């Protein structure tokens, strides 16, 4: 019984939250990695593009709510996401046309493109803050919990409850579906394969008749979908605040690099690596050991490896270690 309790405790406080957070990071990391693999620069506007997508989703959610449309137990935002995706893609294509295209055509070094993306970051951040303001916004509606901790306790008779929020299930489900479709697209369709070829060797791809404009267009469309869904899921699960999204850029970068930048599957796993290690290392294991150890051995300290204040620092340290020992990432980079 105590052993079951310990397992439920870990599930409730580590496994489910980390899986959710990891999914959100994974979507962002695939976004970073795609841009890096195909357009060949580190996009510092990642976090802010995600917050822009979320902003559109929130605006549509408000609009639908004012019309009285809702999805019942599911959050209205799910209905708003497709519309938000379209607007985000339009914004990204505009940015690409007016900003990035010039440097791509001129074959500027990647560093210059990264600098330009900082300009885009400033502008996007301004747009988001001017339109919706810098405050904290919650736009979740519908049923909040799938299983409540108290219900779970009654059901199983255990001491520890397992609470699963509906947003957590929605996040994990949508991420898995989206990522499977994406990998199917990249590996099985002709367009996906031509994207891979373009990322692998640009000149050869051009020689074999692949249209770079089309590749770039499709990359931004996929990027828009990933950014909006990733951002909206994060916002649904936690809350929407532009500054948090900007900060999330850092673990997202960490996830992309840990997984091997340019490699979408690596980025997908990298998201979970970062999320799990952040939560594993900052969780206080006192209660866990109280369950599995006999009473005489009960620990008196919190048994926390690092205080939760260092949550971000954990992912960055992992990144620095990976960069030093395996600069190409855990899963070899640049194979899209």
């Amino acid at each position, binding site marked *: 019984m105590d052993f079951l309790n310990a397992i439920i405790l870990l599930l409730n406080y580590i496994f489910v939250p980390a899986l959710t957070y990891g999914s959100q990071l994974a979507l962002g990391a695939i976004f970073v990695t795609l841009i890096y693999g195909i357009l060949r620069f580190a996009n510092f506007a990642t976090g802010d593009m995600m917050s822009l997508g979320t902003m559109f989703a929130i605006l549509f959610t408000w609009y639908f709510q004012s019309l009285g449309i809702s999805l019942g137990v599911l959050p209205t935002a799910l209905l708003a996401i497709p519309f938000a995706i379209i607007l985000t893609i339009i914004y990204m294509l505009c940015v690409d046309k007016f900003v990035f295209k010039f440097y791509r055509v001129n074959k500027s070094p990647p*560093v210059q493109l990264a600098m330009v993306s900082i300009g*885009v970051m*400033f502008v996007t951040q301004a747009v988001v803050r*001017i339109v919706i303001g810098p405050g904290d916004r919650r736009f979740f509606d519908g049923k909040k919990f799938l299983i409540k901790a108290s219900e779970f306790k009654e059901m199983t008779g255990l001491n520890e409850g397992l609470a699963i929020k509906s947003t957590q299930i929605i996040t994990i489900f949508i991420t898995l579906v989206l990522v499977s479709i994406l990998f199917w697209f990249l590996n099985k369709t002709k367009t996906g394969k031509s994207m891979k070829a373009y990322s692998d060797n640009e000149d050869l791809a051009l020689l074999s008749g692949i249209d770079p404009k089309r590749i770039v267009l499709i990359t931004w469309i996929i990027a828009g979908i990933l950014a909006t869904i990733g951002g909206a899921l994060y916002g649904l699960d936690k809350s929407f605040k532009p500054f948090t999204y900007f900060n999330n850029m*850092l673990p997202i970068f960490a996830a992309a*690099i840990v997984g091997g930048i340019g490699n979408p599957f690596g980025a997908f796993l990298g998201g979970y690596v970062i999320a799990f290690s952040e939560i594993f290392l900052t969780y206080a294991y006192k209660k866990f050991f109280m369950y599995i150890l006999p009473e005489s051995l009960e620990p008196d300290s919190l048994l926390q490896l690092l205080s939760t204040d260092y949550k*971000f*620092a954990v992912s*960055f340290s992992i990144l*620095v270690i990976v960069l030093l020992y395996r600069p190409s990432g855990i899963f070899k980079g640049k194979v899209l």
Partner: protein
Amino acid sequence: MRKNLNVIYAYTIMLGLIILVGIFQSWNVALSILNMCLISAVMTMGANIQWGYAGLINFGIMGYTALGGLAAVLISVAPVQEAWQAGGFNIIMCIWLIVAMVVIIKFILKNFKKSKIRSYIIAGIIIGGIIFIRITSEQSIEAIESVNPATTGFLGGLGLPIVFSWIVGALFAAGLAFIVGKVALGLRADYLAIATLLISEIVIAIIKHEDWLTRGVKNVVGLKRPVPYEIELQTKEWFINLVARFNSGKLELISNLSDKQAALNQLVIEGSSVFVKLCYSGLFLIVVLILLIITQKALYSPWGRMMRAIRDNEEAANAMGKNVVKQHLLIFILGSAIVGIAGAMLVTQDGLFTPGSYRPMRYTFLIWVMVIVGGSGNNFGAILGGFAVWFLWIEAAPIALFLINLFTSGLPETNALKAHLLESVPYFRYLMMGIGLLLIMRYRPKGILPEKIEIK
């Protein structure tokens, strides 16, 4: 003379703008803008050395700024005796432990061949050391933090004049840069950018949460100033006389004696804060000038030529027998040290240290905008960038307010759009920075004052 004409023009326009602010807003605002411009100029010089001279991307400027600020605290705050008694010994022991750990690891690295076992042993030493240090320090940290937590709760500093911290800040930043450089400089440019950005976030996390050293988010306030305090100035005879002489024309117009006294008092209060700011400006200007002379000399020295060679063609420079790795590390340290000075100056000026206020937008990306807009590789350009961008950053809100009022003048006051726009005036500065950066990068990629190297 002629070739420097655009430099002179640019700086005259910049000073003119600041003087205009002085005339139309107030001299107080103008001088505080000038002071921040000077501090920004120091930061941009640091970033320019790394990016403009050597082509190294350092997105960790925020971390070095914060370390400089920390130096200001550790130098100027009086030591907290009780806290030292409560846990000072243990903390010093922990520092020795860290030193011992580093020495042992260095010894192992030097004397054993690279193998899996060696890596495991090193990892074991690091993890074991961290756990051991945590166990030894835990109680003393708690003891230190519980000493009068409302006002101190940390070890305090050395109680020296704060100006020393400008040098110590540079040393701190240089120390961090040495470690970061050793670790990360081998990386490719964009990886280096990301790595330095993340490392600076780690530095901020440590400063924010190690309360025994920095008081963390409880902030350190009331740092001693290198210049007189306003309140003291207002009672000083010579200062009142000085203000009276400066404003004698204005004062003579007032015939009533008590009115005259009241007007004088008001002027003294205003004058004192202007005077304090002027003192700061003088101090900062000295630093900027010294750094400018040194960096200009370095730029035109054989060393500067070598740096440019390394920047423009690393392989060729390497083939010519230049030690690229060593020079990169050196310039990374030098640039970071200059940023550290700026960090200490910033805290000196504000008189308070607020770890929560260090954010990458303000302390990393804005500085980069300054360098790129001003002109990387050209010290005058970088300084001008610091001035122009900071000026715009501060004056963006009034400009945006003016523009919004102009364009929405047809709309009634209660219009929702107008009200919303007026509410979000502070965020237009991001828009201006972004658009400014994009325009400069597109149409004048070398900045307002481009790099000019003449081979004589």
